[in-house]
């Protein structure tokens, strides 16, 4: 169990660094989602399931959706909408 915790924590750090150095904004958001998901698992391992549910719903769900929306608004997410205009 300890090994799993260490792996998850290392994954968190790698994710946090990768979010900031990734040049593609879409990749950044997806890495951020995975960060939230791993954080939710860690909350469960720390025996706080309330926080885990909230983290999974808000961090991995709603926040990322709002980020995607912002990307779409500034035209950084693919060119599909621009072509169909």
């Amino acid at each position: 169990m300890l090994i799993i915790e260490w792996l998850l924590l290392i994954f968190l750090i790698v994710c946090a660094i990768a979010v900031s150095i990734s040049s593609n904004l879409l990749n950044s958001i997806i890495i951020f989602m995975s960060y939230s998901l791993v954080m939710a698992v860690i909350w469960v391992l720390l025996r706080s399931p309330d926080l885990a549910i909230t983290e999974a719903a808000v961090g991995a769900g709603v926040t990322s959706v709002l980020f995607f929306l912002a990307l779409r608004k500034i035209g950084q997410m693919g060119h599909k909408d621009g072509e169909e205009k």
Partner: protein
Amino acid sequence: MNEELKAVWASFFNWVMGNGPRPENEVIPAEPPPALPFTQKPKDKYSRFHEATLKERYSQWLEIHGLHLFSVLYSGVSVLLCIVLVSLLLATVAELPPFGHERNPANNEVIERYVKHGGRETGAQNIVAGLILDYRAFDTFGESSVLFTAAVSVLMILGASRRNSLKDDSKPHTHDPESGILQRGPPLMHHDDAILRGVASLSIPVILMMGCVVVINGHLSPGGGFSGGAILSTALILAANAYGFGKVHAFFSERTFIVSSSTALMIYALSKGYSFFTGANHLHSIIPKGTIGNILSAGLILPLDICVGLIVAGTLYGFYALFSEGDM
């Protein structure tokens, strides 16, 4: 007085004030008659020989070099600030007690009391729900009010711009719509996506059910109003993406949001205000606690959970709808 010194002083004065020396053989052009007596500037007379004053020279220098200087200064100061902030935070963390130690302040008598008497005093099986919706219910009320206020502000700002644009659309366009900076982006059209629809029709009921369970069982199991509301809002967002905003608008519009959220907030405020007066720590609460473990137990925690869930679901979906469509 020394004449040379005087001349040097005069030239320096001219240099500062911007009135350069005039060549002696120049003919001053005839002054045009002043059109308005009070708007004429005395400097215009010498405009041909006008040199830049020190202030103008400074602003010109700023225009040329200012951006570079600013960026250098900015990056330097920001790096400095970051280093100071990081070292401050690291010093604070180093002073914190070790994680999980039994002598930590987090494990002192307060948490003991909550764990020992929380179930009996609040009637909630989930201690966290009893904590945030009974002992600290006022904090949760503040959080819900902040969420509601944020949503209403966004609604006001984006709604006002939408109403203005609608007003503008009724009038004939005076500016070029192709190049206008004020032109809003293309509306995020809803594409008929069979895969998305199929997945949504399968998963939306499950997500909605999950959200309701998390909200209603907030005092029995992990979860509660906030997380359940967030799950409900993700179901709404998925429905809006799969079936278009019009379908969601049919049962969840701006009016529904305002009515449900303000009603929930009012119920929260009234019930919690009431229980503050009747059910404070050493007073007897007239609201029955019920049996621990039943759905209808824990006094006011269940209705408060439902209120918070409604507010959170409406707010998060409202953010999405407002930011993507400018409408709700």
